[in-house]
């Protein structure tokens, strides 16, 4: 029995699972492409223009420009996290798709790696749909904002890995609600998304920097869209990279433990 830290053997066959999910996604592309588009519009008008009227500027940046990168980061988080919790759980448990696939030359490691890649791809798709809306609103600057796309992939992979850890240990689909509202919702609010972390007591700032992946993704997205390099750039990048590697490795090993008996 490999430990949860052992490096999984993944082959290029993982791409076939990714491709399967992509095919399913594009079969219903109209309903899938709409939500990120609407989400961007709603956030920007309600919070950016609405609440933003009362706020004016944060650190010398207009409020709508301040939250624009957060909207991208939150969407990247949600896309990957919900794809690799509820989406993967349905495929694993209800559809028995993983069982069907591991009867072919693919290994369980290939399957989970494909799912993780697909989760990150969902983030890329969401962010890519949102970018034109933000450009039209004139709240992000080009061309540096295009860095949001690779960032969406990296951050998406972080949240996909985190999500897959929960999927691997959840007893049922209902218990996936816990990480959703105990982790994802607080993270959405307290990661320097709609207000700077600096207004919070120091302890909250440290917690957000230490355990919330979104804090780092928002910071990186903001550097890209303003554009302006922040003081914590090396920390943000290092944190995301290390967390992504750890989450992905652990999630694959936990899944192997759950499914290969």
């Amino acid at each position, binding site marked *: 029995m490999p430990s949860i830290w052992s490096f999984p053997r993944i082959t290029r066959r993982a791409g076939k699972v990714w*491709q399967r999910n992509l095919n399913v996604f594009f079969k219903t592309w109209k309903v899938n492409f709409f939500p990120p588009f609407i989400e961007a519009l709603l956030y920007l008008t309600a919070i950016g223009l609405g609440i933003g009227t009362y706020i004016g500027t944060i650190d010398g940046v207009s409020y709508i420009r301040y939250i624009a990168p957060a909207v991208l980061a939150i969407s990247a988080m949600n896309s990957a996290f919900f794809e690799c919790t509820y989406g993967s759980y349905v495929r694993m448990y209800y559809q028995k798709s993983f069982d069907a696939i591991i009867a*072919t030359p693919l290994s369980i490691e290939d399957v989970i790696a494909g799912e993780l890649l697909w989760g990150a791809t969902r983030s890329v798709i969401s962010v890519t749909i949102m970018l034109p809306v933000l450009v039209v609103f004139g709240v992000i600057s080009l061309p540096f904002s295009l860095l949001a796309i690779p960032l969406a992939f990296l951050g998406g992979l972080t949240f996909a890995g985190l999500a897959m850890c929960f999927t691997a240990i959840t007893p049922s689909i209902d218990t996936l609600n816990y990480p959703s509202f105990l982790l994802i919702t607080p993270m959405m609010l307290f990661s320097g998304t709609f207000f700077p972390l600096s207004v919070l007591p120091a302890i909250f700032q440290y917690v957000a920097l230490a355990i919330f992946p979104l804090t780092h993704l928002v910071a990186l997205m903001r550097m890209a869209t303003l554009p302006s390099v922040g003081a914590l750039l090396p920390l943000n990048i290092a944190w995301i990279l290390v967390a992504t590697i750890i989450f992905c490795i652990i999630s694959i090993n936990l899944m192997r433990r759950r499914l290969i008996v």
Partner: protein
Amino acid sequence: MPDIIEADDLTKTYNEIVAVSHIRFSVKKGEIFGFLGPNGAGKTTTMRMIECVSPRTSGTLRVFGMDPDTDPARIKQRIGVVPQETNLDPDFTCQGNLLTYARYFDIPPADAEKRAENLLAFVALTEKRNTAIDKLSGGMKRRLILARALINNPDLLILDEPTIGLDPQARHLIWERLRLLRTQGNTIVLTTHYLDEAARLCDRLVIMDHGTFLVEGTPADLVREQVGSEIIEMDNTPEVITCLADLGVPYESFGDQVQVATDASRELAKTLLDRCKTSRVSTRPATLEDVFLKLTGRTLRE
């Protein structure tokens, strides 16, 4: 040439519970080999070890001469699996299921389309090509799973309860297709609860219980060796029981019936009719079901 499957001392335990215990068997090229046994006997566990999806605890196992622990992808490339549980992909149509599955085996798209078309015809589902999975009947789903298992032209086909829950028409179609596959040189391993199915299809079979093999052989040999050629059935009355005991004829009674296994039914039936005060004495050929019940008992399994 080595056998398709060679297992020796094969054992599988799940958290202290022994599911398969020190079994030894080999499956030759071109034969249909059956695993029979009550629920929980270890049949599915054995299939899963051969399919390289469940690692063995101890013993040796070789499929096509390769070890499932070290060469799973190369083994699985040459195997077709019909699982007990229907796990077709509900996000695709019938054809979509076959094409998506073909991709897992690295079959080029043009080739896959041709194979999918042939296989849909093979299982009589051509007209359902573009139908969603949830619109199929149980029998159609099983047939589609058979087609899916054949998409990679497998050298070895593994079927776990292939006809479970099917109507007679669908069962016969699947049987006929399996026999056709055998004539084309395929090797087939199957598990089943249906003794008539095993008797019709299997060249050789094993009866398993509690993780070990009870007997192994051809269906006809097993019936002859274990039970005899015929079964005499009578009503279960005290008179009949006393009479059989007096005659010294071994019998088995359960419910409202008494059964006597014999090789000379005509003489014995006549004797019983003359000597025992019973209105009903009927004889029938012994079947695999008699062997099965004799070996595994009549107690209900979970």
